[in-house]
Structure formats: structure tokens, C-alpha cells
């Protein structure tokens, strides 16, 4: 039988209960609303094209499922990559747009569960992953020296963290027992996270080698940086 290369990437409706879906929509609305506010307060016109390019890249890269062991694939999420370049708030908007278009135009990921998908694949990486990135980079003596290892660690954690989040939502919805789903989901995504880390590091290294100025958007205030400033 002919099977198509790109099919379902994101959780469809039915995977979480209506109350959980609504609760996740509420959380996501607050997060995205705050991200809009922060980005509105501080976004340099010159950074706008890069936001678009980053969204386009993440959309394309998410289509490229890479093999992870027998009978399983993984794909980039991209939240940490976006946040390292664009800061957590603009990155949250980029991820929201990507996951939103995937649901609305490509029927990849349900509409009711979209709030959860934006949170799990967007905010977990752009906010949680970014916090990890900053912490690890600080431990390694600053972003200039620790950028790539910090991005690798954050990218891996963002995938496992996102998997943990959807697993908790599945279990809270009564779709699957937590004890059954948790080891399977975390185990699978611990492997997929290695791919996320590799792609994230490769992309940042490539940008650093060709357009190093794009790595300083946060420093120069072209995009809003973390809550620490």
C-alpha cells in the first residue's frame, strides 16, 4: 500500500476531553495574549522579515519526519530555535501561527485541541525551553560561549517536556492511564529530542556562520527578550 510521507503530525480532536481542551485554550490565550503585548511594546521593523522566515522554516522542517528507531519517526518542533533567535515572546507568536495554520489549512491537529497543541509545542519550548537555554548558557559562562550546548539541552528538554504535557492532558482526559502512556511517550520523545537538539544546533551554527548579526536581535532590543529585562 502506498503511504504518504507526511500525514499526522499533531494531536487530533478527541485525544483530550472537552473540559481539558477548553482549559488549555484558556491558558494558551493568556500566554499568547501576553506575548502579543510584549511584542507590540518592543519589535523592531527590521526583525519582522526574520519572524516570517522563521515561521516558514519551522513549517517546512516540521514536514521532514526523520526516522527514530524501527517504525517510528520524529519531527522538529522548533520552539527553542525560534526563541534563541527571536526571544521567547516573538517566538511564541511564530509557533502559534505555524501550529494554527497547520490546524486550519492542513487539518493537522484538531481545532478544539489547538490550544493544547500551541501550548505543548509552542509555549513549552519558547518559554520553558528558553528559560532552560538561558540557565544553561549562564552556567557555561554566557551565551557567546555556551550558545550551542545550551540550545541542545533546551531543545531536548522542550521535546520531552512537550510530550510530558500532552501525556498529562491525555491522562487527565481519561483517554489513557498515565502509568501506561508516560513511559512510552517519554521514552519515544527522549529519542526524538536528540533530533530536535541536532537540528536546532545545526540551524543556529549555520546562522552564526552566515549572519551572526541575527543572533544579536535580543541583545540589541530588536525583539523583546526574556522576563529578566
Amino acid at each position, binding site marked *: 500500500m502506498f503511504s*504518504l*510521507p*507526511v*500525514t*499526522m503530525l499533531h*494531536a*487530533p*480532536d*478527541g*485525544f483530550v476531553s472537552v473540559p481539558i481542551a477548553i482549559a488549555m485554550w484558556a491558558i494558551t490565550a493568556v500566554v499568547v495574549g501576553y506575548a*502579543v503585548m510584549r*511584542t*507590540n*511594546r518592543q*519589535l523592531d*521593523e527590521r*526583525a*519582522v*522579515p526574520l*519572524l*516570517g*522566515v522563521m*515561521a*516558514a*522554516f519551522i*513549517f*517546512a*522542517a516540521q*514536514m*521532514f*519526519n526523520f*526516522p527514530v528507531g524501527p*517504525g*517510528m*519517526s*520524529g*519531527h522538529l518542533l522548533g520552539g527553542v530555535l525560534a526563541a534563541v533567535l527571536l526571544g521567547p515572546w*516573538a517566538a511564541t*507568536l511564530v509557533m502559534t*501561527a*505555524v501550529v494554527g*495554520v*497547520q490546524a486550519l*489549512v*492542513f*487539518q*493537522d491537529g*484538531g*481545532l478544539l485541541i489547538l490550544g493544547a497543541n500551541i501550548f505543548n509545542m509552542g509555549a513549552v519550548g519558547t518559554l520553558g525551553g528558553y528559560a532552560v537555554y538561558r540557565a544553561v548558557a549562564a552556567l557555561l559562562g554566557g551565551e557567546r560561549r555556551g550558545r550551542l550546548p545550551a540550545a541542545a539541552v533546551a531543545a531536548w528538554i522542550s521535546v520531552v517536556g512537550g510530550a510530558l504535557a*500532552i501525556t498529562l492532558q491525555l491522562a487527565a482526559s481519561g*483517554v*489513557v492511564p498515565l502509568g*501506561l*502512556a508516560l513511559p512510552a*511517550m517519554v521514552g*519515544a*520523545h527522549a*529519542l*526524538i529530542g536528540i533530533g530536535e537538539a541536532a537540528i536546532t544546533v545545526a540551524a543556529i551554527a549555520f546562522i552564526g556562520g552566515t*549572519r551572526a548579526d541575527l543572533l544579536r536581535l535580543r541583545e540589541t532590543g530588536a525583539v523583546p527578550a526574556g522576563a529578566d529585562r
Partner: protein
Amino acid sequence: MTTTTDRGRFRVPWIIVALGIIAALVVAASIWASADPDGLERVAQDIGFLDVAEDSPFVLIADYVFPGLDGPLATIVAGLIGVAIVFVVVWLLGRVLVRRRSTSGD
């Protein structure tokens, strides 16, 4: 945006280069992406909760296959449309956020 022309020397704007790389990535993904289920779908199969998935109430370009086309071409067209849509949506959003700030006096 940079449309840099160093007095006579023409440089391709970086944004065109970037979008070219992204388009190449869509083509590569449409041909070489693994057809195996991703982590979530595989776990859902193994544990047996994939059947709780509900169909979308409407369909535009489902499964990254552009209607009426076959094979990798259907996915290439679908993917390029997706790239164009997210790029334009995010660009416009960025423009709106920049402009709103400057008109509100900052």
C-alpha cells in the same frame, strides 16, 4: 529589510536565499521524509487510543496532499502553499505590531 546593492555589486537579499533554502527543504521532505508514524501517533497505535481521534469538520489540504495531485508533487505544492501562508501571516502580524506601537507614541 535588506536589498543591499554595494554600488554596482548586486547581492541577492538574504530573505530570498532563506526562502529558497526553505523551499528546497519542502521538496526534500516531500520525497525523503519518513513515512512512519511520529512519536505521539506511534504510542497511540501501540497503546490503542488512536481510534479516539475525530475527523475534522472540514477539509482544505488534509495530510499535506494538495487535492488532485499525486505522489511527492502533491506534498510539494501543499508544503509550498503552507510556507507562503505562514510567512505572510507572520509578516503581516509583525507589521501590525510594529505599526501599532509607533502610532501609540511608545
